[in-house]
């Protein structure tokens, strides 16, 4: 997909002034952004910025206190539309939760049954190859390395070949080699899918993303292309400016 197609394509993910308040604490404050079809967007922010809350709202796990979220024009807070959306959306929650007593083969088979996917074996074979988990398919998940567990989580998210992928910190806790492998996989997937991935690692933006959405303290502080983020003084300095931290800390 070309840059122009990405900039003019239909809006796939839309957050419209979404806020989330827990008691007295406002986790999100009127966050708005759009991600167009075929874009890989990095949702950037330090830990606690509100990234996971936003992703949970987008996927329908949580509802916003106010504002609206739409993916593929479907409202995840409406029961029927959430079910429809779940068929088209792949989601990898933060730290890739899995059933640790199961093997990857059993886990994927469970999700095939849960999603009522016809031709389940073909789906499992496809994601097994895509995520390179063939050699650990019959080992209990709790015995796998963090990198393999993350790949099994990715395989779960890709099982139904979704149009949209939401990945919450997909490279968190991985070693440099594993990070490179996951980034390569995401870049490959980005050729055919719309992806929103959260990260607190600046290098991820350069390595993967076409667009950047940055939040800090639950507020949107930047949305634009990767080039717009880094154009003046470099991504790192800009990141620290936008997140309210002193530039000299960078040095």
């Amino acid at each position: 997909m070309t840059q122009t197609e990405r900039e003019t394509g239909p809006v796939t993910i839309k957050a419209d002034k979404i806020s989330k308040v827990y008691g007295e604490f406002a986790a999100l404050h009127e966050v708005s952004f759009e991600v167009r079809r075929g874009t890989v967007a990095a949702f950037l922010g330090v830990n606690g910025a509100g990234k996971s809350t936003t992703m949970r709202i987008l996927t329908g796990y949580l509802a916003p206190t106010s504002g609206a979220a739409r993916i593929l024009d479907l409202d995840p807070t409406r029961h029927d539309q959430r079910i429809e959306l779940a068929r088209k959306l792949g989601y990898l929650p933060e730290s890739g939760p899995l059933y640790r007593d199961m093997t990857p083969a059993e886990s994927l088979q469970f999700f095939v049954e849960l999603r009522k996917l016809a031709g389940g074996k073909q789906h499992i074979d496809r994601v097994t190859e895509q995520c390179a988990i063939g050699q650990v398919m019959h080992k209990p998940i709790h015995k796998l390395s963090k990198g393999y567990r993350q790949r099994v989580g990715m395989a779960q998210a890709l099982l139904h070949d979704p149009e949209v992928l939401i990945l919450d910190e997909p490279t968190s806790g991985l070693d440099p080699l594993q990070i490179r492998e996951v980034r390569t996989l995401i870049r490959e997937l980005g050729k055919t899918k719309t992806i929103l991935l959260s990260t607190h690692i600046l290098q991820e933006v350069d390595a993967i993303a076409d667009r950047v959405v940055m939040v800090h303290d639950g507020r949107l502080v930047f949305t634009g292309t990767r080039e717009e983020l880094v154009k003046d003084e470099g991504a790192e300095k800009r990141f620290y400016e936008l997140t309210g931290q002193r530039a000299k800390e960078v040095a």
Partner: protein
Amino acid sequence: MFGVDFAAVGAIVRKDLRQYLANPTGYVFLTLFIATTAAAAFMQEGFFARNLADLAELNKMMPAILMFFVPAVTMGAWADERRSGTDEILLTSPVSEADVVLGKYLGVLGMFTVSLGFSVAHVAVLSFLGDPDPGLMFSTYLGYWLMGAMFCAVGLLASMFTSNSTVAFILGALGCAGVVFAGAEPWAAGLLGTAVLGLLFALGWYVVRAGDVAGAAFAGGLGTVVGLAFWLPSLLPWLHEDGETNRFIDSFSALAVDSHFASFGEGIIRLGDVAYFVGSAAVLLYLCAFLLGRRHW
């Protein structure tokens, strides 16, 4: 039918049953259940003194045994999903909250049914010792199963409140204890009634005011005070005359399992008693689905 996605429910049931039966802890609980029920049935003076091939001694103890055994089975049903974060995957899959609750419930009920199935060995022992009445055995086991099915719903509801299995076990056991002891002790019926009123007030406010937690807590407190106002007169001697009944206590005594289970132990299957167990489980499961749905408010 009824909007239930049976394929998804079946997938959750199979997954949960596999997890229970692949885990050594599941077999420890199962063995303990068989050993405890065998001891309650046969290692009692009354069993040999009565010289009858029935499970009357076990019937007396079964509510108390299930009060601990069932929450031990259900404690991780939802608490473990929350602790490990897999609830997020389940609830963002193309399944409804009702399907998830039904799948989880049938999973724990399946595990309980397997355990109860093994305890049918007690009937074989009775057959060896005497000539048990098959109809009585059937109704007795139906009673055990229905009581366990209701306790499974209590335990699942308790598991919804926390991500800690131990806390879920304690809450589940307390919930079951409420309906086990309510028939025997007036104070237990009073306590159960006060807790139910507090919960109903809190949930009512939560529904009407769409997720107002502080308001729900206040409403829960108010419900508790109302419950205490009904209950306390029977505790304070100067507020009532000897022998005077308290309708509040009587009402919640009627919710006790023993009065509804007793007829099954006598070989009688009353529709009202079946409806009590099935209806209670249905109400509790509805509450579970309601609690899962609250994240959308």
